[in-house]
């Protein structure tokens, strides 16, 4: 099959060229979201199942592909052929029975292995030490509430490391305030959808500290692509520190008093909550501890003074089609407001 050899060569050539080009362009730090690098039991169970499935389908592929390749090569019409038709075979009961029975058995094996994993992941009971989170999907950001701990945050989920001997998994209830979304952090668990008027559940029990990335995986509108997700897996101590800090209301920093006044007298309060102030809007993220987060706009921009100011002035420039209106403040007010926001640690 000369032709397919040629296509393989072309593919390899293009691949090498592209690899050179892209590695030159890469400047940002790498983060793998591969489903084959699980760090939590649900993702791990799926990974193990996937190995079995890949092994079985791989074997099937090799067998059938060999039969196909063999028949294409061996039974091609040669030059100098005598022009007679080959033996006209209409079928074979034995062969057809065999290639019905064997696939049925393969399917049975696959199914039993799969059914086990479905039960173990979905019907896993919640142990006493579990952390409970309620995740509410919005267009286009994530709201996270820890009802037992009295914490409300957005977009960046903090969970404690789970030690297999004393498991402290995080059980997440998934709700939506508008359209369908999907919670997907590949290295921690499979995705589960957030559907309005419906309560879903998922759980994770990360084995390694670190930052795990994900994003919304169900098309939810214009800025679906930028509804990013960060899960920070902290050590138990670090997690408890974080919770303590998050529970506190906003600090009153006198240096930022002017900014706070602007915040409380502008439309900001209609959408945002800052506990300890009059602002108690629920349409947008809770800003009480805005500066404890690394990014803003659900991961669309880094959380720095410059980006914060751009965001407030014209959200559409960073995330076109998002639901925050441009606040249209003058430069002085914008500056003061940003100074205030920067104090919300």
């Amino acid at each position, binding site marked *: 099959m000369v032709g397919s050899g040629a296509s393989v060569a072309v593919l390899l050539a293009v691949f090498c060229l592209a690899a050179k080009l892209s590695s030159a362009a890469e400047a940002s730090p790498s983060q793998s*979201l591969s489903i084959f690098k699980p760090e939590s039991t649900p993702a791990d169970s799926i990974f193990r199942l996937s190995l079995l499935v890949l092994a079985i*389908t791989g074997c099937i592929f090799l067998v*059938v592909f060999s039969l196909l390749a063999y028949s294409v090569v061996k039974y091609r019409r040669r030059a100098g052929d005598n022009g007679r038709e080959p033996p006209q075979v*209409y079928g074979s009961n034995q062969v057809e029975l065999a290639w019905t029975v064997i696939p049925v058995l393969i399917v049975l094996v696959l199914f039993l292995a799969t059914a086990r994993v479905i039960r173990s992941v979905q019907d896993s009971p919640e142990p006493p030490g579990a952390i409970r989170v309620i995740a509410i999907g919005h267009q286009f950001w994530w709201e996270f509430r820890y009802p037992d701990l009295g914490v409300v945050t957005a977009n960046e989920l903090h969970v404690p490391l789970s030690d297999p001997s004393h498991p402290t998994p995080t059980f997440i209830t998934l709700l939506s305030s508008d359209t369908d979304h999907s919670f997907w952090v590949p290295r921690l668990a499979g995705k589960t959808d957030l559907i309005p008027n419906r309560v879903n559940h998922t759980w994770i029990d990360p084995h390694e500290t670190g930052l795990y990335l994900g994003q919304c995986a169900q098309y939810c509108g214009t800025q*679906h692509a930028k509804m990013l997700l960060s899960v920070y897996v902290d050590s138990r101590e670090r997690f408890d520190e974080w919770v303590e800090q998050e529970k506190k209301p906003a600090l009153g920093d006198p240096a930022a008093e002017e900014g706070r006044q602007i915040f409380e007298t502008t439309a900001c309060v209609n959408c945002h909550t800052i506990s300890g102030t009059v602002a108690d809007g629920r349409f947008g993220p809770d800003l009480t501890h805005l500066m404890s987060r690394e990014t803003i706009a659900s991961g669309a921009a880094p959380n720095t003074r410059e980006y914060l100011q751009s965001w407030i002035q014209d959200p559409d420039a960073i995330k076109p089609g998002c639901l925050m209106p441009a606040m249209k403040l003058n430069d002085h007010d914008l500056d003061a407001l940003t100074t205030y926001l920067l104090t919300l640690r």
Partner: protein
Amino acid sequence: MASETIALGTVDGGARPIGERLHDWVVTVDHKRLGILYIVYSLVFLVIGGIEATIMRIQLIVPHNHFVSPQVFNRMFTMHGTTMIFFVAMPILFGFGTYLVPLMIGARDMAFPRLNAFSFWMTAFGGLLLYFSFIGGGGLYGAGSAPDVGWFAYAPLTSRAFSVGHSTDFWTLALLVSGVGSIGTAVNFITTILCMRCPGMTLGKMPLLAWLNLITGGMVILAVSPLTAAQIMLSIDRYLGGHFFDTQAGGSAVLWMHFFWIFGHPEVYILIVPSFAFASEIIPVFSRKPIFGYPVMVAATVCIGFISFSVWAHHMFTVGMSSYGNTFFTITTMIIAVPTGIKIFNWIGTMWGGKIMFKAPMLFCIGFLFQFLIAGLTGIMLGASPFDWQLGNSYFVVAHFHYVIVGGILFTIFGAFYYWFPKMSGRMYSETLAKWHFWLFLIGFHLTFDFMHIPGVLGMPRRIYTYEPGRGWEIWNLLVTIGVFFQAAGVLVFVFNLLRSLRKGDPAGNDPWDAWTLEWSTTSPPPEYNFAVTPAVNSRRPLWDLKHPEDPDWKYE
């Protein structure tokens, strides 16, 4: 006297005025002309859908690209999906069926020729409605354009609250209208095949293409109707203030998903079964053997038809069904792999021991076999629901279904084009150009869709207008986009080949492939009445019996 074809003039010298000829085409009820109308219509939309795909791929060639805005990108993937399924794949398969079924069963036309014409024009109008949305979707507030809700339009994104203007309504109405056309065509197929076979052609003796189109007709009847019902419900929600899918009033978003996928899953079998039909006609002729295991091929396809109605929620594994629900749909999805796999074995069994001729129709069918095998295997992976919790809604799924639709269905459609082009036009195509088409398209297909699986496994969801750098997705997206240009080149060669051969191809004669079914017993192109004398048959390969009177099929079947 010969009937008119697309480019040849009349026999008696001096072409009739163009206005009269166009009028003939517009008012025709002849199944052959309607078939050609369907096919040409689909080719136009194939190019348009391809342009939409190219726009998306250029946007995704690097992260944070600014080729198009997110709003435009979201319209592109919605229109690309809707166009390719409803205004390319379905019409082109119906077109081939409409052309071939009466010829292959020895009939003079379809059972209801006027219904045939009505169905075509309804489908055609649906496509125009959908594309009118670019202009008319804005409504009073100038707020909309083409639909941007995805081709499966999940609620409540499609409600008035989240989908302003009329863009979604154009989507709904276009599909309602073309759905009526599809149901009409299905009624016609079923009636024609059951009621108009020539003497001697029992159900066990009709060509597989006829059988498979009969099964497809049954599936369309039972699957398109739920979509029609869902569209009516959505319109009631949007226009009459209904609450079918209004989650704020207690309605259920998941109910839309169930209704849509009860249509959506059988729909993909509606697309693949006629493709199986093409492969089942082409592979035997170019292997010089009858199809291996005809009765099992029929039985397996009937099983596929039935089982396809029990697997729909494998598109919903992530919505939070109970473990029992997920388990049930896992088992049905895996079961349907069995009859599907059997068919692949039967095709290989047909080639086994034969004398394979590598003409363009056969090349495309061999590509189909290889690619459909892989697509089926990635389908099994997705059918294992926990695995789907990772792979679902990611680029792995996009790669899987394009593997089926482009690598499977489109390849057999190309094969069917080359196989029946001589019959429909009376001319042979250029085999050299066809081979160029095949290799260019094959390279492009594999570049794009092999590598597309990888970003899915690396965590890239679908329907995103851009993606973050540093996740290892960049190089795969680059390769995927490069493949698009090879495919485009292949399609251009294909169209050029068709147009040029229409004018300058060698005369084909009745039976250029030395084939065995009834359409090859009449002229190329066939006269308007198809057969001067209604044929009578005694076996599945009537022309084999004629050509080999010492060894006819009816002794062995």
